[in-house]
């Protein structure tokens, strides 16, 4: 399919979103309700992952390095 402009491509993507989720058949106010709920849920997921994922990843790395790194330190102490 050839799109004359980027705006036409975006409107085709919006049309696909309407068809796949099935909200193409709904009335405009129902479409707004569904889209607002969906995008607020996605926004909350993005915000939560931005705030919490680095902290969790750092804690997880410390935990795993604590197991392996700590083992080698104690054997070195025994040898010494």
């Amino acid at each position, binding site marked *: 399919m050839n799109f004359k402009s980027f705006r036409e491509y975006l409107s085709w993507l919006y049309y696909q979103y309407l*068809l796949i989720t*099935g*909200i193409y058949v*709904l009335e405009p106010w129902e479409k707004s309700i*569904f889209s607002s709920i969906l995008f607020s849920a996605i926004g909350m997921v993005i915000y939560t992952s931005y705030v919490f994922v680095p902290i969790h990843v750092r804690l997880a790395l410390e935990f795993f390095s604590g197991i392996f790194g700590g083992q080698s330190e104690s054997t070195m102490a025994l040898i010494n």
Partner: protein
Amino acid sequence: LALSPHTVLKMDGWMDVYICNFFVPQNQNVTHNSSLYKKPFEESFEETPLLVAVLTYMGYGILTIFGYLRDFLRHWSIEKCQVAREKEEQKDFVPLYQDFENFYTRNLYMRIRDNWNRPICSVPGAKMDLVESVSHDFNWTFEHTGRVVKDVINMGSYNYLGFAENNGACADAAIEATEKYGVGVASSRCEMGNLDIHEELERLVARFLGVESSMAFGMGFATNSMNIPALTGKGCLILSDELNHASLVLGARLAGSTIRVFKHNNMQSLEKLLRDAIAHGQPRTHRPWKKILIVVEGIYSMEGSIVRLPEVVALKKRYKAYLYLDEAHSIGALGPNGRGVVDYFGLDPKDVDIMMGTFTKSFGAAGGYIGGKKELIDYLRCHSHSALYAISMSPPVAQQIISSMKSIMGEDGTTLGADRLRQLSENTTYFRRKLREMGFIIYGNDDSPVVPMMLYMPAKIGAFGREMLKRNIGTVVVGFPATPIIESRARFCVSAAHTREMLDTALEATDEVGDLLQLKYSRREQPLPSLGWMAEESLLQD
């Protein structure tokens, strides 16, 4: 576990290759007993892609949630209720409108209702005129704008041989018949409604089908639903295909016989049911069944598949059952001489006990017929509900059938019939091949003029119908409850009246709409065009 015929012969002495069939695992696309078929039997029902199935269920889930929301608003009168409701006095009784079909009708069908019941204001031939109508309140009410959409290519009418026309020899003969007999008959067949034109029609139909005698009825649906009760009763067994038409199901239920259903076009399932029926007899008393009637259709219009008639006939002879063949869509449309599915497979019409068909599809008229042995038809003349109580066929309609049938048989002195048959089979092959090549999932047999194209998602049902109408092509889209819930489809009916240009226009528009709506789900590799000398060289090296 596949046993060869030789080992089975030694085991229990049954001289029959069907015992071997009983143990072979099912594979719908492979023809068992290919010696019964004179040409290859190509059918395909490609599996639903998993992602598409998941997204379809998700779409239906979202629409169900919104359906509950709207029902809640309607119940608490926040929104005006425009749908059927029970009265206040009936609120304590069993609810009438709460089952899923009514929920589905209120909340999904209503939203895309403009794709069905479109008024046509011309002959439904290859091109037709539609009355333009708009809805301002989301399909609850419609208004005609006063304009007419002209020359819409008609891909939805069952006009297989193109006899739905208002000029030509058939229309002239029908006008003469109206001038001679009038339009109404005002009586049933048994009383005063038996005209000489009906007798002529019945003799012609019997000659066309190659049977001893036949009888014509005024309505195709009533032919099935009123005659099966006359043929079977309590103590009989009806084996009917999974996907049989509503008229056959209604007729079987009205008969009061036991009904058992076998999987669609699946001969192993049918054989198993036959063997169980003969071995165990009636349910509690274990007496033998009075008769066993196998009910199948020639072409199944929702799937586009053709019945495996040689195998059914072989099974019927082996187990001594009777066969009722409903050729509603296949009469006139299949076979080198247009004589239906029996002609297509090259079988003897005397093998099918009851040949039923309708005149609505290929003959451009209305009504149905039943053909068979003389004793059977004489019995039906006295005992069929339709003959006793329903008004007989109208004379211009009977004359239209007579002229179109003579045209197909070649007895009107022109080659029009043979041309139309050839044009239909060429159009069918071309249309199916092109749609497959474009990448759509098409169900059914390669020779059937009914072409179902899969859509799957609920929103695409409405979008497809509307987009095709914008491009001036009228199509029929089908969803639940006529099909399983995720397998909604668009059904094209190819006609002999379509020229190559019309088919090309329709194919181009389908291609465009397919890209716009992303309908090309097929995952089969397309055969590459032949490379000529390079292909031969690779053969030589082997």
